[in-house]
Each structure stands twice: as structure tokens, then as C-alpha cells.
């Protein structure tokens, strides 16, 4: 089965090939580009990238599964990634994550039944000056309190 590649993605693929012409270097940028567009790295995406770069699909799979940011399954429309490392823990991670779990009715690693939110625990995000922090689809939210979490999550459509 092959996948539908949008005009936008096709353009990005060309850009990546030109920018990183050497060996297998295009793989990571391609994985990012496909995930940005399609939400996760399916087997079909791995095959597509393998074809573009000239490696076996299993090679792409090895790479994509090594890096934690690549989702190998679909995630919710909003992927909430809460930092559980030392500084965020010192500043209240345990309470924060419990609050989000209750609010959404899901555990870490789960997606709400309407497909809107996925909750993950991640390692240090480099935002320790604003601990506790979370990242949702690329955007950082820091100095979290229960009220702030309500405000943020309720504002997401």
C-alpha cells in the first residue's frame, strides 16, 4: 500500500534531498517531515523513506524507533508531553501529572476516546527554569499550576 503525498510534502522532500545530499543523512529530516504532515511514522512511511534514500525499510525502522520523538502509532490531535525529570519533579511533577490524568480520564501512554489528547511522560525538555513544564505539539508551557493547565487544555479546540 502506498501513501498519498501532498504537494507540500513533495516539495519538502526535494528540499531535504538537496540540503543533505550525503548518504543516509536525509533520513531524520524526512522522518520529521512525514510525521509533521501525517502525525506518525507508519510502515508505509518507512517504506517510502527507504525508497527515497535507497536503504531497506527495516533500516528506516531501526532509526525511527531509536529516536523517541517519532511516533510509531497514531497520537491524539494534541500530544501532551509532561517532563518527569529531576527539576520538574522537584517542582511538582507528581501532582501536575495526576491532575492532567484525572482531567482527561487517561493514563500516561493513552489517548482520549475522541482522539483529541495523548498523554506522555518525557525526559528533561531543557525548560527547567520554568519547571514544571509540558510541551504540546511543539509549544512549551511552563510554570504549570492546576489553573494554568485548565486554561491551556480548555483553550485547545
Amino acid at each position: 500500500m502506498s501513501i498519498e503525498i501532498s504537494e507540500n510534502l513533495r516539495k519538502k522532500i526535494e528540499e531535504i534531498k538537496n540540503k543533505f545530499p550525503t548518504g543516509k543523512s536525509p533520513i531524520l529530516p524526512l522522518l520529521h517531515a512525514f510525521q509533521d504532515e501525517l502525525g506518525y511514522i507508519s510502515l508505509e512511511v518507512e517504506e517510502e523513506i527507504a525508497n527515497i534514500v535507497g536503504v531497506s525499510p527495516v533500516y528506516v525502522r531501526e532509526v525511527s524507533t531509536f529516536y523517541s520523538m517519532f511516533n510509531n502509532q497514531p497520537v491524539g490531535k494534541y500530544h501532551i508531553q509532561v517532563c518527569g525529570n529531576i527539576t520538574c519533579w522537584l517542582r511538582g511533577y507528581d501532582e501536575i501529572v495526576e491532575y492532567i490524568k484525572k482531567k482527561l480520564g487517561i493514563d500516561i501512554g493513552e489517548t482520549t476516546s475522541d482522539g483529541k489528547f495523548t498523554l506522555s511522560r518525557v525526559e528533561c525538555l531543557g525548560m527547567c527554569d520554568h519547571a514544571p513544564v509540558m510541551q504540546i505539539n511543539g509549544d512549551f508551557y511552563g510554570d504549570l499550576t492546576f489553573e494554568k493547565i485548565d486554561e491551556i487544555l480548555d483553550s485547545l479546540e
Partner: protein
Amino acid sequence: MSVKILTKHFGIKDSHKINVYMKNGGYKQAEKALKEMKPEEILEEVKKSNLRGRGGAGFPTGLKWSFVPKDTGKPVYLCVNSDESEPGTFKDRHILEKDPHMLIEGIIITSYTIGANEAYIYIRGEYYPQAIRLQEAIEEAYQKGFLGENIFGTGYKLDLKIYRGAGAYICGEETALLESIEGKKGKPRLKPPFPAAVGLYDCPTVINNVETIADIPTIVEKGGEWFASLGPERNGGTKLFAVSGHVNKPGVYEHEMGYPLMKLINEDAGGILDGLKLKAVIPGGSSVPILRAEECDINLDYDSVMKAGSMLGSGAVIVMSEKTCMVKALSRLIHFYKDESCGQCTPCREGTGWMLKIINRIIAGKGRKEDVDTLYYIAKGIMGHTVCPLGDAAAMPVISFINKFRDEFEYYAINKKSMVE
């Protein structure tokens, strides 16, 4: 008042834009370097400056550059390490957000010095907004002719590209970083050969941290001797200290090397949260040995922190108040190293998982009396027995936490509950 090098533009509106940077003297040092200085002259200044790598290891930057072999017929690469994934570390992010052009100017000067015509910035994937800002800054620099062909009319050419990581701490280790740019899993290489000789695409390569490179324009401007004079012997310049944890004002503070740790905590960072007492500090990012409060009367430079039994590392100061349970704190770190071990070396792959099982068991109230000794024994077994220093980084917190807070660990294992909570 401390001298400000890296944060001097941080308060200025739109400090990330090229026009603002240029209005404040930006890109003059790159022009001076390319037009008036020979690469050897710049190298000499950097050697004199006593600048030591800000990525964690503190290796003398000038010496590293001098290892690049001449006339191999192969291209030379510069790779800037912006992976910044060591827990507690967030200093480079501030440079990327507030002064990306200082970094780019440093990259131009460094590349010219080592003879590179192509440079990469490897940025952790989570720094997505930062990567966008950096890309905009790179495009501005191309438009002004500071990147690309014939820079400042000198005939020198430099291309600069961003390569985004994707959530793997190990890719901050310099050879794993190279593997990652080559489109592979981030598994560290055996050294030697060192990257200076055999690096990216098997070509000579210099890898430096963001903060290291951002210091270069100022060294060219004010001279190596001036930079060296800012810190104690063998520790030149200022340093960004990233303070986090139980303090009133977490943040990045720039001071001369050798700045007192307690002053940083009590004055810059506003003291301990809720008026509590200080219990412990990790002075250089999660990988370095922890210090008890009474050991914290030290100065922050590579040699002084080493003398105190820890390391300055990345300059990430993680502060813990008297309310902190050391067993739970350590469990966070072990979880991290277990997650981030690349799996290549057995002691690290198996050892981190084994340690996590034990510490989780203790926290779950199912500890055994011998657990603390077993943890210690496993950490000793990892230490020094792996290809890269991630193994040591996983072992050192365990060894130091147990050495300094053994009573708390034994209490938890035997009494099935925390001594402090």
C-alpha cells in the same frame, strides 16, 4: 557587577534580529577575523584565552582546534552541539532564543579558523520554536552575505545548516551526534580515532558546544589575554550558570569563572524556596556527583568543583531543599539514564535497567536490606566499562547519592517509607 559576554544583549528588544545585533556591533568581529587575521592568529588568541568547552568536559578549545590535520584533501566540518539534553541544563536555549547571531558569528570565525566551508548545528528535536528562530537568523545572515559565497569579499565560503535531532540524549555525545547527522542510530563510536581526524562523513571535524562558540567573537574583539583574565588560572572567561530546582528565581546567570556557588544560589537565584534549608546541590548537570549543603562553599570553575569531588559539567546547578527525598530524586535520574542508554554496551544497558528495578522496588515499599549495596555495586560495575561516558554519567549520581545519603536509602529499604516525607 560581573562582566557580561553572552547575555549582554538579552535585555534588548528584538535582540534576536540581525539589525539589532548589528546596531550593537554585531558581525564586526567576523569581518575583522576574515579580513585582517590569519587562521593561526585566531587560534593563538583562543589558546591564550583559556576557553574550555562549555558542553561539559571542559576541554581546552584552542587545543581541540589545533588537532585538525592540515591538507588531507578532505573537507573539514564544524558541528555545533545544541543537543542540550542533560537534565538541569537550559543555558544554550537562551542563546538560541535571544542571541542566535552571536552564535552564527562565532560559527563563521571558528569555521574560518579550522578551514571548514560547511557547518552544522545539531539541535535537539524538542527545541522546535528555537530551531525556527535559528533558521530565520541563518536566512538573515545569508541575505546580508555573512554566509554563503565570498563572505566580506574575501573569497571565503561557508554554508550553515541545521540538523534536528529527535529525542535522544545520547546524541549530545559528540560521536553519537555525528552518527545521527549521518542518518543512523545515535550509537557512540570508539575513540580513537578522534573526530578531529575522522569525524563527519569520515572527514576532519570539530564539535563544540553552543556557548563555547558564542564566546569566540568576544575573544577576537578583546583578545585572548583579556578573556583569560576574567577567571582563575586555566579557567578563562564567563560562564552561563543555569539554576533550577528549589530556588525562588530559577534562571540563567552569567558570571566570571570562579563565582561562588552559594552567592549564585542566595543572591542571583533569590535563595531557597519557602525559606527552607538547603540540603544538596548537583552543580553541573544530572551526571555529576551531588554535594551536601556543607560542601557547597565552593567557587564555580572546573578545577575548584573538581577539588570538591564533583564537576562543573554544563554549569547546570540543581538545588534541593531539606524536604527532598533523596531516594525518589535518584529514581528520576536512574529512570532517565535507563531511558537514554543507547543499548550498545552491556554494563550500561543492563545496569541501568537493573538499578531502576531496585530503586522502584524500594520506593514501592518492597525494599530489601541489601538493595542499597546492590545498587552501589551495579553502579561501580558500569563505571569506566562503556564505550562512551553515558555509563559513567549514570553511575556517578548513584555512587554519590549513596555515599552522601546512605542513611536515607537504608531507612527507606528497611522501613518501607521515606525518611523525609
